[in-house]
C-alpha cells in the first residue's frame, strides 16, 4: 500500500474513532496489514481477517479460549457480517476492546451474550454459555444439574424484572451495581494484563514510528 493511501485511510479512521489518536490508528493499521499479509491485497477482493485468523489472534494475543465466545467476539467485530474483519472494523473493534467506556462495553458484551440477537439473554443461552464452566463431578447424577443451578443463581442475581430472561436493562442495572458481572457469561474482553502487553507492543515509541515511516 502506498504512503498516500495509508495517510488518507489513517485520517478517515482517526476522524471516526474517539478513543485513539492518529498515531495509534496508524499503528493499528500497520499491524492489520502485517497480520493480513501483502498477499491478500488484491484489487477487487475484500481484504481482511477471516474467522480463523481472527480467532487465532484472540487466542494468542488476548488469551481467550472459549470457542463459542470467540465466535461471538468475531461477530461483534464483523459488523457488516461479511465473514471478514476489515481494517475499519478492526480499528473500531479494538477501540472498544482497549478503550471503550463502560456503556460501550456493556452494549458490546450484551450483544456477545445474546446469542440469537433477540434482545434478551434467555435461560437456554445462559445454559449454553455456562455449560463448560463447572468441573464435571462423576458423583453427580445429572451432570447438568450444577449448570442449571448456576443459571438460576445468575437469574436471581441479575433478572430484576423477574421475567426469566435478561433484558439489556436487567443486565445494565446488574453491571452498574457490580462491575464484575460485565463479562458474566465468559470473558469477551481482553484481560487487563494482555491488554497492557498488546498496547505496549503495538503503540511503540513515536520516534521509532517516524523512523520507520521515513525509511
Amino acid at each position, binding site marked *: 500500500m502506498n504512503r498516500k493511501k495509508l495517510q488518507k485511510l489513517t485520517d478517515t479512521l482517526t476522524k471516526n474513532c474517539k478513543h485513539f489518536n492518529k498515531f495509534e490508528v496508524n499503528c493499528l493499521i500497520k499491524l492489520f496489514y502485517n497480520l493480513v499479509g501483502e498477499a491478500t491485497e488484491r484489487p477487487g477482493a475484500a481484504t481482511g481477517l477471516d474467522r480463523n485468523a481472527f480467532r487465532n489472534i484472540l487466542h494468542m494475543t488476548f488469551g481467550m479460549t472459549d470457542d463459542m465466545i470467540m465466535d461471538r467476539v468475531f461477530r461483534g467485530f464483523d459488523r457488516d457480517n461479511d465473514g471478514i474483519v476489515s481494517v475499519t472494523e478492526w480499528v473500531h473493534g479494538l477501540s472498544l476492546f482497549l478503550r471503550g467506556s463502560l456503556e460501550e462495553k456493556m452494549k458490546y458484551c450484551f450483544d456477545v451474550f445474546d446469542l440469537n440477537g433477540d434482545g434478551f439473554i434467555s435461560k437456554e443461552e445462559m445454559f449454553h454459555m455456562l455449560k463448560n464452566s*463447572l468441573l464435571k463431578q462423576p458423583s453427580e447424577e445429572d451432570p447438568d444439574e450444577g449448570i442449571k443451578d*448456576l443459571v438460576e*443463581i445468575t437469574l*436471581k442475581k441479575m433478572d430484576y424484572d423477574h421475567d426469566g430472561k435478561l433484558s439489556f436493562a436487567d443486565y445494565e442495572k446488574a453491571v452498574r451495581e457490580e462491575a464484575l458481572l460485565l463479562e458474566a457469561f465468559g470473558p469477551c474482553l481482553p484481560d487487563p494484563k494482555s491488554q497492557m502487553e498488546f498496547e505496549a507492543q503495538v503503540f511503540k515509541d513515536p520516534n521509532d514510528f517516524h523512523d520507520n515511516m521515513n525509511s
Partner: protein
Amino acid sequence: MGVALARLAQWTAASYGTGTLEITPLNEILLKEIIIFVEHFIYDHPQEAKFSFVEPLEWKTDLEPSAFESGYIVSETTVTSEEVDKNGQPLLFLSVPQIKVRSFRQLSQLVFIAKDTKLKEAQACVEANRDPVVKILGSDYSTMTEDSSAFNILHKITSSDDPESEMKMRIAILLKQLDLHLLSYILRHISLQICLNPEPVKKDIELLKSFSGKGEQTVLESIDYTSDYEFSNGCRAPPWRQIYGEMCYVLVKPHDVETLCITCSTEGVFLNGDIRFNEEQQKNQIDEVPTYAIRKSVSGSDKNKLEKNQINFRKNQMTRRLEPSLNWRTTVDFKDRKTPAKDSQEEKHGGKLEKTRTSISPGRAQLLRKSVDKVEEMASESSSESEEDEEPPDHRQEANADLPSEYWQIQKLVKYLKGGNQTATVIALCSMRDFNLAQETCQLAIRDVGGLEVLINLLDTDEVKCKIGSLKILKEISHNPQIQRNIVDLGGLPIMVNILDSPYKSLKCLAAETIANVAKFKRARRVVRQHGGITKLVSLLDCAQNSIEPAQSSLYETRDVEVARCGALALWSCSKSYSNKEAIRKAGGFPLLARLLKTSHEDMLIPVVGTLQECASEENYRAAIKAERIIENLVKNLNSENEQLQEHCAMAIYQCAEDEETRDLVRLHGGLKPLASLLNNTDNKERLAAVTGAIWKCSISKENVTKFREYKAIETLVGLLTDQPEEVLVNVVGALGECCQDRENRVIVRKCGGIQPLVNLLVGINQALLVNVTKAVGACAVEPESMVIIDRLDGVRLLWSLLKNPHPDVKASAAWALCPCIQNAKDAGEMVRSFVGGLELVVNLLKSDNKEVLSSVCAAITNIAKDQENLAVITDHGVVPLLSKLANTNNDKLRRHLAEAISRCCMWGRNRVAFGEHKAVAPLVRYLKSSDTNVHRATAQALYQLSEDPDNCITMHENAAVKLLLDMVGSPDQELQEAAAGCISNIRRLALATEKARYN
C-alpha cells in the same frame, strides 16, 4: 508459720529430725517472706516484740561476734544482749557458733545485723527449729496438730485473762496470719501450674454436702449437681462443654442469699450470672479482710460469730477458686490486677471499655477471669507487645444445631467456587455478596463449609476478577474476630500484602481494606510487618497531589485518593503495635500522613488522624509529629462536623500535649476554643473523654489555662464532675487539678460548687481517677476558703485514708494533697490528731521504697511537725530513725523534702541528737553538692538546726561542710544565706568554746 513450714516447705527427703531445706525457689520465697515478717515485726507490733519466748530459738550461726554493735556486750567468742527478760536472762546469747534468741525484737535486730547473710541465717534457724511456734509460745500452741487452732485460741482467751496469755494470744494470731499469708503466697505460685481436676472438686462438694441441710448449725442449706449422670472421666458437664475445661455445674443454696449457680472448670470455680454480681461480691470480700474478722470475733469472744465468719470464708472461697487456704489475698490481688488494666485502658482507648462490657452477653456463664484477661489484652496492645497471644476460643458451629437456610446456600456457592472456571467463580462470588455478610451466621457459614480456604486460594491466582470478588467478600466477613484469626491461620495476610504491589488500584484498595480489618490483633499485625506490609502500605499513601482526577469507572481503576485512604485505614489498624509504629516511621510515613492531613475528605482524615493518634502514644513519634507541623491540621479538624474526626483529633492532641511546645502550638493555632466549646456537647461520651483529655494535657501550660478561663471552660468542667463515666471523670478532674494551680480558677471552682463533687470522688477505686482527684483537692486546699469547705466535707480524712491505698501513685498524690490541707486548716494540729492511727500510718509510709511516696510523705511530715504535740507523737512512732535511714539518696526531690522534714523534726526533745546518732548528718552535708538550689536551701536549714548539737557540728566539720556552707553564704537566696551563716556560726562557736576550754 507452722503449717506452711510443715506442709509446703520442700524438705530434703531422707533426713528426719534435723532436716535441711532444699534450695528451691519456693523455699526461698518462703524464707524471704518470713524475713520480711520478722524485719517489720518490731515496727508493726512494738509491744509484742518485747515478749520473751518460752524457749529460745537456737541454731548454728555464721555471724561473727564483731558484727554486733551497740546494745550488745561483745567478747571474742560470745555476745550477750544488754536487753534481758524479767528473770535477768539475756534475750540474745551467742557463743560461737551457737546462737539463742528469745524475742522478736532481737530477731529483728539480728536480721538487720546479718544483712546479706540473712537468708542463710533464716534457713539455719528454720532448719534447727522445726516447730518455732511451740518454742515461742509453748506446746499449747502447737500447729503441728491437726485440729483447727482457731477454736483452741478462742477457748484460751475466754478461759484466762492474765496479761501474759493475752500477749501470747496476740502473737499466736500474728503467727497464724503469717502462716496464712505464706500459704496463700505459695499457693499463688503453685496454682499457676496446677489445674483443677474432677477428683478434688468431687471431694469438696461431698464434704460440703455432709455439712449441709436445714437449720442453724449447717454451712449451707443445700448443694447439688445439676446433672446426675457422671461420665467415666468424673465430669458431669456435657462433652461439648468439657472441651472448654468445664467439669460440672453446682447449685448452692446458702443461708443468706439466693441460690447460686456455680461452674467448676479446670481453671477454677466461677459464679454464673452477670458480671455485676461478681463485682459486688468482690467488694464485699475486700471489706471482709479476715484479719479484721478474726480480731473482731476474738475480742468479742463470740463463738457463733467466728463460726459464721468461717462459713463466709468457705463461701467466698467456693466462688473464687477451690483452694485449701482461706485465700483472701488472692481476691484482693485479683482486684488490683484488674484496676490498673482498666485504667490504662481508659486512658488509651477512651470509651472502648464500655463496649467490651456490653458485648459480653449477660445471663451466660460468665468466666470473669476470661473477661479480665481480655481487658488486659486490649490494654497491652496499644503500648507494648507482650509475648502471649490472647485469642478467643473458636466456636465452630455445632453440627447438629438447626442450621439456617443460608448455610446450605452458601455451601452450594462454595462448591461452585471450588469446581468452577473463572466465569462460574465470578458468578458465585457475586451471588455470595448478596447474603448479609455482616451477619455472624453467614460469616461463620462461609468458614465452616471451607469457603475461607477457597477465597484465600483465589487471591493467589492470576485471575484479577476472582481476586477482586474474593477480596470484596473477605473485606466484609473479616469484621468478625474469629474470621480474622482464621484468615491469619490460613496464611491470608502475606498474600494480601503481595497484592498491595498489584498494578490495579482497586485491587490494592480492597487488599488494604481487608488488612485493616484483619490486623485487629497482635499476631496479625506482626505478620503484616514481617512480610513488609508496612512499607507497602506507607507507599499507598503517596498518592498524586492533583485532586482533579478523571472519575474512572473501570473495574480495575479507582482514584488515587481512595488508594491512600485504604492505606491509611490499614496503617491505623497496624499502628496499634509498637514495632509497627517504628516501621511506619522508618518507611517515611509521617511526612505522607502530614500531607494527607491537609486534605479535606473526612473519610481520609479519620484513619490518618487515627494512625497519628496511635503513634503519638510514643514519645519519639511525638517529635516527628511536631516536626511535620501536624498539630496545626489537627486543630483545624477539631472544627469539623464529623464527631468521630473530632474525637480522634482531640485524642491525638491529648497524646501529643505531653510536650510543652505542642501545648503552645495548640494555643497558637487557636485550638483551645474549639476544645472548650466541644465540652458543651456531652452526649458522645467517647468524644467527651478525648476532648477532656486534650483539655487536661493542654492545661498543664499556664497560658492555656488563662485561655480556658476566658472561654468559661472551668465552669463547664465543674459541671462535668457528676454523672459522667470514669474515663471522662479522670480527664475532667485532671484538667481541674491543673487549672486550680491558678488562684483565680480556684475561686471559680469554689464558686461553681466544684469542691463538693471533687471531695465525693475521693471515695472511688479507680487509681488514675484517685491520683487526679487528690491532686485537684490538694490544689483547691491552697485557698483557705476552699479549705474550710474541704474540712467540712471531711475531705482531709478521706485523703488521709487514701494513704492506705495499695497504689504508690495514689499514696504519693494523697500525701502531696495533705500538705496544703494541713497548712491551711484551722486547728490543723487538732485535726491531724483526731485521725486515730493517722500519724503512725504516715510515719510507717517512710518504709516505702517508692521515691515519690517518700518525698510526698516527707513533705507531709514537714507540715505535721509544725505542731509540737504532733511532732512529739511522730517522734514516739520513730520518725527520726526512719528519716535518717532515707538520708543516703541521690534523688533531689526526695533530698529537698527529706531535709525539710529533718529540719522540722529537730524541734523536739533530743531529736537533733538522735539524728546524729542515726548517722543522718554526714549524708546531709553531701546534699550541698547537689545542683538544685531548693535542695541547698532545705539542707542548709536542716544543718542549721542540727548544728545546735555539738556532736553534729563535729560530724559536719569532719565532712567538710564549712567550705560548702561558705559558698552558700554567697548565694542570692536570702533564706539559704541565713541558714548557712547560722550553721557556720554554730560550728565556729563550738570550735571557739573547745579552744577556750583547752587553754583554761
